[in-house]
């Protein structure tokens, strides 16, 4: 009997290790393997016995599961609608293989892509990536092939591949799952990138808050070093700064400097790590590459709509019944993701708002659930796809609070370099507090006769809302990077769609 239980960090947090121990005691002859997670997080810890699933399981369920009569049975895992309707290209191995097993990896098509890349050569490799339409999955959505081409053509005696594994957005976990579940896939993707652009060294900038991923990546790098040589890989751990997910401050942090954002130009593709041409790509972008090389660019590009080609590993989270990893071609609607696949709220209450793309993403009301998952469509609608995280809120959510949280988040995580973000985020919080209070009177300082030019009359709620809107405009157009630049998204979308939470008349 083969009993598979995930060793993914979320599963462990739900008790997977204790569960595995319990099975080991109860079924000493069974082969207990620790696999990657299937990504059905509401079912973790999930027990996979010959393809049949049981979850969320506790040590108390062990006996029943072994007998075959557990009420935690969900049937054949692959047939479950959550899994069956996905299009797993990047997460093909999720739930099926042991993450650190080179055999498992090779047997499931591993290293085929890298061999292909060596065969066809750097230029053709870049061509395939370009043709596939693969865009940066970190959030910027920049065509990966074009970035690789720029680095390949840049003059330099040393080039680098940097993997952005800082996954700081709340409600996201795909990078973590991929690194913990299929580390060789990322390694292969980076090696292919290195071969394509002429980079001999790669760094994975991994956030310190992912200790399991750090350990697994380091082990996997050692184990596969001979297979990707002469390409050399190294894990570098972050230090608790969301802003270091921004590529230039990531590079500064990698260089041992303050995690401060750099102005562009120059682009990292030309002057990046230590001033050398550097590819900076997200985990998912690099992990998608082996599939492109082995199955072909056209196959990848055939998925998706418009200019959003391929699949997006969507992360369903928040107040949602069925949260987890859902990889699907671009084009699926927001509503289908949240209601049909996610099953609506965990609390059972109506959905009030859905935030897409992390803490700096816009909030969408149910009236916008028709939006297809597509970079351009979301931008037009005043939002963003970002890293594909979706957080669901029910009707107990206070959108003014959420707006305040956005400013608070920005203030805490701000690198402090540019004025709109450094000071603006703090003032944004203060202004929202005044909105909650309905406005303000003159401050003690403003009321002094010496402050001749200061306005000493009251500021109404409407005045404060205008101020908030102006501040958001300053931050949107004035900030140096997307931290300050996108904070207006959650704030303004909250204000626009839920004015009543701000004490204003509801939109007609």
């Amino acid at each position, binding site marked *: 009997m083969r009993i598979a239980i995930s060793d993914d960090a979320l599963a462990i947090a739900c008790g997977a290790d204790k569960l595995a121990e319990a099975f080991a005691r109860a079924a000493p002859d069974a082969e207990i393997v620790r696999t990657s997670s299937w990504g059905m997080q509401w079912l973790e810890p999930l027990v996979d016995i010959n393809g049949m699933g049981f979850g969320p399981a506790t040590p108390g369920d062990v006996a029943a599961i072994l007998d075959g009569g557990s009420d935690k049975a969900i049937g054949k895992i692959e047939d479950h609608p959550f899994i069956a309707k996905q299009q797993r290209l990047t997460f093909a191995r999720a739930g099926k293989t042991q993450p650190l097993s080179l055999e498992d990896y090779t047997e499931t098509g591993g290293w085929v892509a890298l061999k292909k890349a060596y065969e066809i050569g750097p230029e053709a490799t870049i061509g395939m990536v370009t043709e596939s339409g693969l865009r940066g999955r970190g959030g910027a959505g920049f065509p990966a092939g074009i970035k690789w081409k720029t680095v390949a053509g840049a003059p330099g005696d040393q080039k680098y591949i940097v993997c952005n594994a800082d996954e700081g957005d709340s409600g996201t976990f795909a990078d973590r799952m991929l690194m913990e579940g299929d580390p060789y896939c990322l390694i292969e993707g980076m090696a292919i990138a290195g071969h394509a652009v002429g980079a001999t060294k790669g760094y994975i900038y991994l956030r310190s808050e992912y200790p399991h991923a750090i350990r697994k990546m380091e082990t996997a790098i050692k184990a596969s070093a001979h297979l990707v040589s002469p390409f050399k890989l190294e894990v570098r751990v972050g230090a608790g700064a969301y802003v270091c997910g921004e590529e230039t401050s990531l590079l500064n942090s990698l260089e041992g400097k303050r995690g401060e954002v750099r*102005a*562009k130009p120059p682009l990292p593709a030309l002057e990046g790590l230590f001033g050398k041409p550097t590819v900076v790509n997200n985990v998912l972008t690099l992990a998608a590459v082996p599939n492109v090389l082995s199955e072909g660019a056209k196959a990848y590009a055939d998925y998706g709509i418009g200019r959003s080609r391929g699949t997006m590993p969507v992360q369903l989270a928040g107040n949602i019944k069925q949260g987890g990893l859902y990889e699907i071609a671009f084009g699926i609607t927001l509503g289908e993701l949240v209601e049909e696949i996610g099953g609506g709220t965990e609390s059972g209450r109506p959905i009030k708002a859905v935030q897409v793309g992390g803490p700096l993403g816009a909030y969408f009301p149910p009236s916008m659930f028709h939006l297809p998952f597509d970079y351009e469509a979301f931008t037009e609608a005043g939002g963003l796809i970002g890293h594909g995280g979706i957080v669901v809120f029910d009707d107990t959510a206070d959108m003014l609070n959420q707006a305040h949280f956005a400013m608070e988040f920005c203030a805490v995580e701000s690198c402090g370099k540019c*004025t709109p973000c450094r000071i*603006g985020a703090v003032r944004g919080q203060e202004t929202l507090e005044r909105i909650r209070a309905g406005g303000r009177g003159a401050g003690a300082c403003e009321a002094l006769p010496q402050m001749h030019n*200061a306005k000493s009359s009251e*500021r109404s709620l409407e005045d404060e809302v205008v101020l908030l809107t102006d501040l958001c405009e300053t931050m949107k157009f004035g900030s140096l990077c997307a931290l300050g630049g996108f904070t207006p998204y959650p704030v303004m979308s909250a204000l626009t769609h839920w004015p009543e939470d701000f004490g204003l008349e509801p939109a007609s």
Partner: protein
Amino acid sequence: MGYEPQKDFGTPASRSEKTITLTIDGEKINVPEGTSVMRAAAEMDTHIPKLCATDNIKSFGSCRLCLVEIDDVRGTPASCTTPVANGMAVHTQTPKLQKLRKGVMELYISDHPLDCLTCSANNDCELQDEAAAVGLRDVRYGYEGENHLGLETDSSNPYFDFDPSKCIACSRCVRACDEVQGTYALTIEGRGFGSMVSAGTPIDDFMSSECVSCGACVQACPTATLQEKSVKEIGLPDKSVITTCAYCGVGCTFRAEMRGEQLVRMVPWKDGKANRGHSCVKGRFAWGYANHKERILNPMIRESIDQPWREVSWEEAFSHAASEIQRIQEKYGTRSVGGITSSRCTNEETFLVQKLIRAGFHNNNVDTCARVCHSPTGYGLKTTFGTSAGTQDFDSVEQSDVMLVIGANPTDAHPVFASRMKKRLREGAKLIVIDPRRIDLVRMPHVEAAHHLPLQPGTNVAVLTSLAHVIVTEGLVDEAFIRERCDWDEYQDWARFVSDESHSPEHLEAITKVPAEELRRAARLYATGGKSAIYYGLGVTEHSQGSSTVMAIANLAMATGNIGRPGVGVNPLRGQNNVQGACDMGSFPHELSGYRHVSDRATRKLFEDDWGVTLDPEPGLRIPNMLDAAVDGEFKALYVQGEDILQSDPNTKHVAAGLEAMECVIVHDLFLNETANYAHIFLPGSTFLEKDGTFTNAERRIQLVRKVMEPMNGLQDWEVTQELARAMGLDWNYAHPSQIMDEVARLTPTFAGVSFDRLGELGSIQWPANDATPDGTPVMHETGFVRGKGKFVVTDYVPTDEKTGPRFPLLLTTGRILSQYNVGAQTRRTENSRWHEEDILEMHPSDAENRGLKTGDWTNLASRSGETTLRLLVTDRVAPGVVYTTFHHPATQANVVTTEFSDWATNCPEYKVTAVQISPSNGPSDWQEDYEAHSERARRIEIPESAE
């Protein structure tokens, strides 16, 4: 002309030769590729509001005020970080931009003190300027929000304050410290709203940090956050005058910013060709000595040195001096008197002193402080190249691929130039350091020497010969260059000599203590690393083979073709602000101006015709020989201008004996210095702020010194010399120093094109400047050497006679520190003493341990010449067997210990090699105590009875 701040273009200039055409606000402009949009706008006098950009550091993009709109470009990019592109159409003022800028400014002012009117930066504050420019009228956030206004001021630095409550977190100070100065002392602590400028760790203040007080951050700061204390006390300047620093041989030019006749602050001049807008703690801040209470303002005389001084009128002083000189010459002969010119006074003043001696005293007994520092440079480079000066300008370092620094410590002694070296090193140039000590340059933030050769003191020639050995035997010479530019036969003699096995690095390692393999690698790097430049200092010249070492350096440069273009060359780092000039003006006893020997008939005739006197054709006495002759009873009178031979010359006891044997010592200086203890006549001098004239720096660059205040002592130094000459019967009538320079130009071919008018036009001139090169000569020997063919001179290693032994088993070498300047006459009388209150002895841990000594202990430093007492610092910067100290404080009497040994060709003292012993001590030595007492007695000034 009123006070105008220096124009700030926002971002650095581009060096590209390619031109880009773009339109800004409808107007076309052409600028070099690589220029930022901000700078292009500034070039056409369109000011784009900015706070975090300033043109001596790279753009940063943090304030977000300088946003512009560009056709076909999304969003509102920052103009400071956007390079120009052909056909670009930029709009700097649109309703959207105006709103955004107001929005940004509103945020700034919501966290800033509001009492501008009483702030020391009122009218000198960029935040104020930009708030006005964007038209801010209402700060809707109010003033009750989170702020930084309660932070306390750091006043630890004696010259400037750091008030973080006014800081706008633009990082200009941090970037200036990084990019301009290269010290990396500042950082931003924390993140987000809590971001704060910090001078090191959270417990540091500016004084305890690595800050070297160069003032770059103060200059860069747009608000009053970093501000000179003098501005707070006095107020803003109302005019500025450009002048040249009187400290070291870099020759930084400053704007002396005045309020009336009061100097408010010295700000580096951005267009200064030597310093390019940078400065060090001395020139920037340590000018207060001009007003120090110890400054002597009245002439004084006394019959004998054990009597107190008596103040007299100028007239009495001059006539007494003249009559004494005449009396002595009558009694002891024409050659019994002489003078020493100053390397700190102007060219014009120096020219007059040597003229007084030659035309008035009728002999050639004139010498200058270069005797004790770079006279071997004069000899060595004249012999090999034909010119007694360095071959390049400072800008040349920007193109160097390899720098070989030997016997110099530029981060301490030529700090502004060192910053330029460091900048180039950070860009990837390589560094070789040859020094017994691990000087800072060997390893400091973002700079690391590829090779440090810690040789045994006194073995320079051996090391250079073994470098030559490697270069010749490994076939790394530039044969084409040698054949074309040098004498091939002389080269072959030299090549044969260095190739001998006895000169290999392996063979010489026992003497030099430099590991052979390391030396070989260094030689290869110098010969093949690209454009290689040699920079050297007194660690080369102040040795018994100083001249030979200079020639060995010249040999290396010629052998590898590293002469005659930017990026290469042989660069002596001249110490004093005008030592180059003093030598140029004919201060040496064997040479008239322009380094022409006194025996040369044609040259003498030129002068004789102009001056109307016959000149002595024989070389005169050098300073050490003057002192010898004095002890012999043959030299009896000395006129010393701006030089303290008792503190700075070696073998103090011998100098004292020489001075004591004289009958008339005339000291012309600002303060009663050590030499004045033995003087009979004291003529008060004037500072560089109180005179017009010129200084010539280490680049041969002649720069104007402009008077900003009337001399407190009543006369400029050149006027004093003129009056003394007139008292001796010479009919001198110079009305202005420009006339003196005109005379120099008339009589000296290399100066033919120099005049105050031309200097005013061009800003500065590097000699030679004549019909062939009317605008001066930045790089020398471009097509041929001045002497024709470059001369290879065989330099055999002759070990110094100064040997260690059981009694004196250690070797002492000396040097300088950043904050103090030479004998400290000026810097000790400023706040700079806070950084260096006493000279400290550095010793290796193994030597200290053997003697039971630890850091902070008083130690006795003794040689066969004498002994003194200093406090100890145990450090591994020096190798075992070597000790080091500075000589800035007279109380230390470091030169009591140094010997009479000197360079064979020039008598430049061998300061850098003295055999010594160190032992524990209880306190000052007997000599020091006697000297203290003697000094006090010798400095008494009689208080005149008040005239009722």
